[in-house]
Structure formats: C-alpha cells, structure tokens
C-alpha cells in the first residue's frame, strides 16, 4: 500500500439502528453520548471527510443500514461502494434478535469486499455492550466474536466490544486509526527514543480533535501500571473536560482545546501539551521537580524541531517514510 496516499476510504456498515452514526458523531463531531438521541436514521450513504493527523484524511462512508439500502449496496452499487476500501467497520448490535440474519448480511458484505478490495482491513464492533449485565459481558462478547470470525472468509478481523457510554468506544476507534496512520513506525521510533532520553514512564500521543490515542510508548516500570484501559480513559476524561471548557467559554467543542497542562503530585508528574499541529503529547514522569522541568524543556525543543519540519512543507512535521531518522532526538538537552 502506498503510504503517501492521503485519502483513505472507510466504510461504516451494519444493521439499521446498530449505532453507526452515533459513534461517528461522538468520535468525530464532538457530540456527547446523550446528544445522539437527536440523530435520525441515515438515508443511503452519508459521506464525510475527517482530517486526522494532518496528512491523513478519512473519507467516511456512513451507510444507512435498512434492508432496502443494504440490497442496493450489494447489487446495483456494488462496485461503487466496495472498490478502493481501506477499512470496513462493521457494527453489530449485541441486542439483536436475528443473529443468523445479521451474520448472513455480514457474510454478503465480506464477499463483496473480497471481490473489490481484498486488502482492506476489517474491524467488527460488537456495540451497545452497556446493555449487557457486567458479569456476562466478556462471555457473550467472546461467543459473538468467534461467530463473526467464522463468517469472515480470509479476512483477519479485529473485534472490539464497545459502548458509547464508556471508554470502550475510544479503545475501538484508537485501534482502528492506529492501523491507518501511514508513517506510524517512524513516529513510534521517535517516541521510543524520546521517552528513553527523558526517562518517562509513559509517553502518549493523542490526536488533537478526537483525543484518540495515536500511539504510545511505555517504559518497563510504566508497564507495571495495573490499569490497562488507562489510555481510553484518558481520552474520555480529556474530551469530557474539553466539552466543559467549550460550554463555559462560549465556543464550539471543535475549536476548544488545551494549550498546556501541568500536574504535579507526590506520585507522578504529568505534562500535556500541543506537540504538532494535530497532536497532543502526554508525558508521565516520576516525581522530581528538576527532572520534570527538564522533560518539559526537552519536549519543547523537540516540538520546535517538528514545527521547523512542518514549515518546510512536510505536512505534520512527522517525516514521511521511507525511514528518515528524526534529527531532533539528537539535539536534546538532558
């Protein structure tokens, strides 16, 4: 796949009422969970373009899920819909009573996808998990995902259980965008080197408008953190606060944001700041005022390096592949 290609076609499919438009609105259009009640049914296909990480544009095709539409997608519009797809996101409603029929439709979609874009990634979200009692969630989710895998032909499918009412939605979508970012290895290599230099417990890169985790690096000590879903929870926490800030400073959630956040506690120090045009960097370093200030200073230096690169016209500052070792890592003060 050509990594420089900037537009990625993302198909969002699933049965009518399964929650496709709801989650799209929450992740990309700054809705809060209770606002999605206002959404009506999606008619035919709704196209939207989402800029993500500067050099990547997601071309989101939200396909209405009523049976009549489904039939046209699979028949007359087949080549139009299914060609050139980078990602198919298929949403299952956990509460659905016609599991077999859902699976048949899913299988038909997979068939069509195999025909026109055999290299696409497939993600299946088992949605509305909040409606299942907590003690049964894991079991039901596993049963369902085995069933899904058995109907997925040769595609390697990633499944996520999700709900718009908690952080699981962020986990699922972070997993999805993680697969889409073109120069991820370069970014990750830089972050690893950087986090070693500043001796951070954890470095997380968040996308600016969605607050989805782009990627993260965790040190050996940081790995011991018993809370595994912390990244999604952070997305959730910060996005909720962004909404609050927007509400109270009379702006739209899209234009609200943070310039910088410092937090010092006896157990950890956290720095959150704008990194490149489209990302926030989130540092967790052990307590120690001097070490913390040093880490922040280094982050600023690295950021300058990136903005220089960005000014030189390389989109977001993150160098595009083929591998170019980011020079900024060498110029760090320590």
């Amino acid at each position, binding site marked *: 796949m050509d990594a420089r290609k900037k537009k990625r076609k993302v198909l969002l499919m699933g049965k009518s009422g399964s929650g496709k438009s709801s989650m799209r609105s929450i992740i990309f259009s700054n809705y809060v969970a209770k606002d999605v009640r206002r959404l009506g049914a999606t008619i035919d296909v709704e196209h939207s373009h989402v800029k993500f990480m500067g050099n990547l544009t997601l071309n989101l095709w939200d396909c209405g899920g009523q049976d009549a539409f489904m039939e046209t997608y699979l028949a007359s519009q087949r080549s139009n819909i299914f060609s050139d797809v980078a990602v198919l996101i298929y949403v299952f409603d956990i509460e659905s009573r016609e599991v077999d029929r859902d699976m048949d439709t899913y299988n038909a979609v997979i068939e069509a996808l195999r025909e026109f874009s055999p290299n696409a990634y497939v993600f299946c979200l088992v949605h509305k998990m909040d409606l299942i009692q907590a003690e049964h969630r894991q079991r039901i989710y596993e049963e369902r995902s085995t069933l899904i895998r058995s109907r997925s032909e040769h595609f390697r499918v990633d499944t996520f259980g999700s709900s718009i009412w908690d952080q699981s939605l962020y986990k699922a979508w972070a997993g999805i965008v993680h697969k889409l970012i073109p120069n991820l290895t370069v970014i990750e290599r830089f972050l690893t080197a950087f986090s070693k230099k500043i001796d951070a417990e954890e470095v997380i890169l968040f996308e600016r408008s969605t607050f989805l985790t782009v990627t993260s690096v965790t040190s050996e*000590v940081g790995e011991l953190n018993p809370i595994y879903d912390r990244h999604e929870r952070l997305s959730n926490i910060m996005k909720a606060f962004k909404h609050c800030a927007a509400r109270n400073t009379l702006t739209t959630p899209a234009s609200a944001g*943070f*310039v910088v956040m410092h937090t010092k*506690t*006896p*157990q950890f120090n956290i720095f959150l700041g704008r990194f490149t045009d489209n990302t926030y960097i989130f540092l967790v370093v052990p307590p120690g005022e*001097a070490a913390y200030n040093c880490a922040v200073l280094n982050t600023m230096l690295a950021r300058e390096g990136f903005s220089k690169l960005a000014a030189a016209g390389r989109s977001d500052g993150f160098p595009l592949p083929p591998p170019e070792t980011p020079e900024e890592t060498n110029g760090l003060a320590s």
Partner: protein
Amino acid sequence: MPFPPVRRSQSEDPDRDHLPNTYISSTFSTYKTSAQLSLEKLLQGPNHGGGSTQPRSALIPNTQARDAKPRLLLMGLRRSGKSSIASVVFHKMPPNETLFLESTTRIQKDSIHSFMDFQVWDFPGQLEYLEPSFDLEDIFGSLGALVWVIDAQDDYLDSVARLNRTILTVQQYYPGINIEVFIHKVDGLSDEYRTDTFQDIVQRISDELSDAGYENAPVHYYLTSIYDYSVFEAFSKVIQKLIPNLSTLENLINTLANNCGFEKTYLFDVLSKIYIASDTRPVDMACYEMCSDYIDVIVDISELYSWDHPDRRPKGEQIQEAESHVVLHDETMIHLMEMNKYLCLVSVIRNPEAKEKRGLIDMNCRTFQDALNDVFSRSWEQEEQGNA
C-alpha cells in the same frame, strides 16, 4: 451547647473567639472519644421515643462540645428527591442512576468525614416526626440546617403546608436552626415557569409564617436540580453558613485573589465538590463548572497513575501537595492547588500574562495554604494543650 453558637458567630458575639472554634476542632480529631460514641449510639434509634422529658433548654452538657457534629436534615414529602440529592452530592452517584434508588423507609444517617465532620440525615417522606412519639431533641438537638426539598414539578401545596408546620415547631424550640428550602427538579421547567413557581412558593411560606407571627424567619430558598451544578451550589451555601471562620476564610481568599489577579477563586472540598468558601465576587456559574470539572479531571487522572510499586522511584525532591494548572485555548488558566487532605484551592485566571508569573502565583498560594492551616489548627492545638 454545640450548635446554635455557630450561627451567632457571624454576628458580634463576645464568645466568638472560642466557642465556634471548639466545634471545628473536631475535624482534626481522628479518634472518637467515648462521649462521642455514646452520643452516636443515642442518636441511632429514632423510634426509641418517650425520653423527651428532658428540659429542652439544657441541651447537651458542655463537656460534649468537642463531639458536636453539625447535622443536616433532608426532609420533604416522599418522592421529592431527598435521597437522590444525598447520593449525588455525597456519594458521587451519576444523576441518571438515581432513578433506580429505592424509596427510603428509615432514617438514613451518613457521616461525612471531611474538612469538618458533619452528618447528613435523610428522612423518609412519610415519617411523622412531629408526633409526640418522636423525640424532637434527638432530631433537632444538634442540628445545623434543615434542608426541605420541594418537588417543583409536582403539586407543592401539601409540602408547603407541612414545611410551615415544621418551621413553626422548630422555631419554637430551636431558633438557631437554618431552614433551607430546595425547590427541586427545576430542570424540567421552562425558565418562566421556574421563576413563577419560585415566587409562588416563597410567597406562600412567608405569608403563612408572618400570619403566625414570625416576621423574619431564617428561611432561604434555592432552585436546584441534580442534573446540573445547582444542587452543589446550593449545598455549598448551606454548608458555608455552618462554618464558623467563614469570614476569615473569605478575607484570606479575597486578599489572595486580588493580589494574584484571579478572576474567581474557590476553596473546594475535594470529595463532595462543595465549595466551603470563595472570594466575594459574584458567583459565576461558568467558572464554577470549569473548576469543579477540573477537579474531576485531576482526580481521575491521579487514579490512573497513582499505583504503588517498589520499582517506582522518585527522581528528586518535590513538594508534597499536588499542584496543577491548565491553559485553555482562549488563554484562560485554571489553577489548582491541594491545600490539605480535604481541601483544594481552584482559581480561574483570565490574564494571558499569568503564564510567566506562575512561580509568583504558586508562592502566594503556598502562603495562603499556611494561613489556612493556621485558621483550622490553632484552636485545636490550644485545646489539646488545655486538656493536657
């Protein structure tokens, strides 16, 4: 006598310097004295009745002054939202989950251990506590405030009538009690209707009270809803009236805010997110929401990264109290500083230059912290010495 002096403390009372302080001192006693335990035991049974022969004037012997916990009573008709309020404010329950709360059948007593210890008693709406079988002394004896909840979406005439009866009884024996009326569930009303309801209720109560000869009864009214911040705001006001050194605190905060150019400053109780004092500028709901949500952010993030492990070592010296600030897109800065175990100071600064002067702001806040701890601790230390 523990409670009524607290109210007087805000007026010019010769006793002002030591009486209220004895009561705040209980905050810092981590153990329970035997007197306190027996007092609690005494308060546990609402139905033990019959023991009301004690003269009402000699309330509790002075030796128990240290153990006095101000008490908040939540009263009102059934299904007016008392338990929901208690759960949302004191147990951090998400508002939409209060739908599933069972109706309260006996008095629910919550002890809140925070910057000052107090009790919250949640009364079942159907309980006829004015009947002679109830010991009024037990219920109202060490009372700080009576919070009466009225469902504004329902027919409130019955509730108003009952409230009036209660006020008249309570006023007779315990004139020092604050009566706070929460006109509740106003989220469902339109703005205009809300104002009308408010005025109507206020009118009815004050009319009836003045008919009965009480011209200026200490009754305050609040419009509340658990779905926004109004119930926290209202509770903050209720609690503030019970804090003996409120004016000192407000003065301190005013000085700090003026010198640092803070737009608005709140001293929050972290657990309940009630603010116990703020500067005396007008309340700005937007600032309050942001400050209150920012505490949430810090508490939630702390939860994610405060794990203990022997391999996790600090890399150097650091001040023991948490400190945090965030700069928003429009240059507004929210500054948070932990004051002690229970309290934190949150300020909103709208001056873009504040970023460069953070060192100065931090230092001023530390000075404030010392002063605050002085206010809370001195009387306690004095008493300890006196006892020893």
